[in-house]
């Protein structure tokens, strides 16, 4: 097993445009190794684009992106579940291990265990088209976690889930992060989820493609269901919400 702190990232002057319209506008952003960073922002502001740039799936038009370490193991939970339709649920989850050459009798139990933690222990033999929307996203999450990556990128992973399941998975993700240090970049449109999980919340502006707010959440980890109803949490959430609302009211 790796003994890393997770990968750090340094983004400098990142610029990305589509058809002449800038989506990310000379963005600077440092992500510390082991940090849990939440990215929020209005729909269409460039969150997914930023994540794709970090994952090296897309290249910036200008600017540089440096990783603190070589050979970082990255995992990505896409906004769509992206499952291979010809593989059963458990085979989908085990795929990253399979690609790393982990033998069958090691990767299958690991996949099974993970499926249980996302509440899909019984669905392991099903095929993706037999699953509900939320179930697919959970499979996709399990697949991302199975390699215990250094850098975990999540694009609204819990959007299709009900609040209870969501809270459950929030806590699961947190404990995973606490026990196996890794850097997490978490895109979400739930402000409370962002504040609940992250060390730091970054708010992207729509149209401009800048960072409007970069807020350090000074709550100790682990956070628990009790945190959600505590006054400090509600206060931090209020700050983030107000910044978001102000941004949303400002015309582009």
């Amino acid at each position, binding site marked *: 097993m790796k003994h890393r702190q997770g990968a750090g990232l340094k983004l400098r002057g990142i610029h990305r445009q589509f058809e002449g319209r800038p989506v990310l506008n000379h963005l600077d952003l440092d992500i510390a190794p082991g940090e849990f960073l939440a990215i929020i922002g209005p729909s269409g502001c460039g969150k997914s684009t930023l994540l794709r740039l970090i994952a*090296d*799936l897309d290249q910036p038009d200008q600017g540089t992106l440096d990783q603190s370490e070589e050979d970082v*193991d990255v995992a*990505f939970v896409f906004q*769509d579940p*992206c499952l291979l339709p*010809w593989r059963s649920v458990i085979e989908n989850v085990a795929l990253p291990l399979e*690609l790393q050459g982990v033998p069958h009798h090691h990767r299958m139990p690991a996949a099974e265990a993970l499926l249980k933690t996302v509440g899909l222990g019984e669905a392991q033999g099903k095929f993706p088209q037999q699953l509900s929307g939320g179930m697919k996203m959970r499979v996709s999450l399990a697949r991302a976690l199975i*390699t215990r990556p250094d850098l975990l990128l999540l694009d609204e992973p819990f959007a299709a889930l009900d609040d209870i399941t969501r809270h459950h998975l929030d806590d699961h993700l947190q404990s995973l992060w606490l026990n196996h240090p890794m850097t997490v970049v978490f895109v979400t449109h739930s402000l409370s989820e962002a504040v609940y999980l992250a060390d730091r919340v970054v708010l992207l502006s729509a149209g401009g493609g800048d960072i409007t707010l970069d807020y350090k959440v000074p709550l100790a980890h682990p956070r628990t269901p009790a945190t959600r109803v505590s006054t400090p949490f509600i206060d931090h959430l209020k700050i983030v919400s107000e910044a978001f609302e102000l941004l949303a009211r400002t015309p582009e």
Partner: protein
Amino acid sequence: MRALYQIVWLPPLMSFVLITGLIECSIILMDLPAYLAPRPSAVALALWMHAEELLKATWHTGVAALLGLGMSALLGALLAITLASHPLIRRAFYPYAVFFQTVPIIAIAPMLVIWFGYGQGAVVAASFIVSVFPIIANTLTGLLSTDPALLDLFRIAKASSLHTLFKLRIPGAIPHFLTGLRIASGLAVIGAIVGEFVADSYEDGGGIGTAVEIALKEQRTDLVFAAVLMSSLLGLLIFWLVSGLNLLTLKRWHLGEFKDS
């Protein structure tokens, strides 16, 4: 209760009876000469009278066509994979696949004969040459139209190109490959027949191509059509075999194709 039309062989049978009936009547009514368009009944009679030879010929051609189709499936898929592996390779060599498709077998018959000898070998080679292109083209399309989102997934997982090929591109291209195989099944039959025209050995009776050629020379139009009918039935048989394979393989993940048949 099962609707009548759901019995697989009933609709084609009914349309067959209808169509042959129509042809028979129109030939009688228009008083067409037999050498032009033989009456279906005359063809049926020829079929009956020469049943044994025709069945033997069909078997002969069928074996060659299946071998040719098998080679096409195997080599066509391999070629498609090679072509898919790099744009440079694709640009440099895809044209030759097209070349293969447009070369008239008769022009290269002597080469076939000299390389494979007269008989089955050359016939199978002809069947292969005629049927391989749809498999290459369709499989290549499949290999190149992999969902970009899934490709991203594999890139992130740092999958080797071999892994990406075998665990993503190839499984995703199977439906395309099978469509190619369906198209190729008929071509394999026609390829074998053309091969027989130019390179079959007559000793063991020969195949459908030989039967057609002889019937043509003897100006026996009824026998020509009987042989053609056998070749079409053979084509259908192989087509159905391949379609069955299709259903079997795609049941799980391919969307709606042929879900009703």
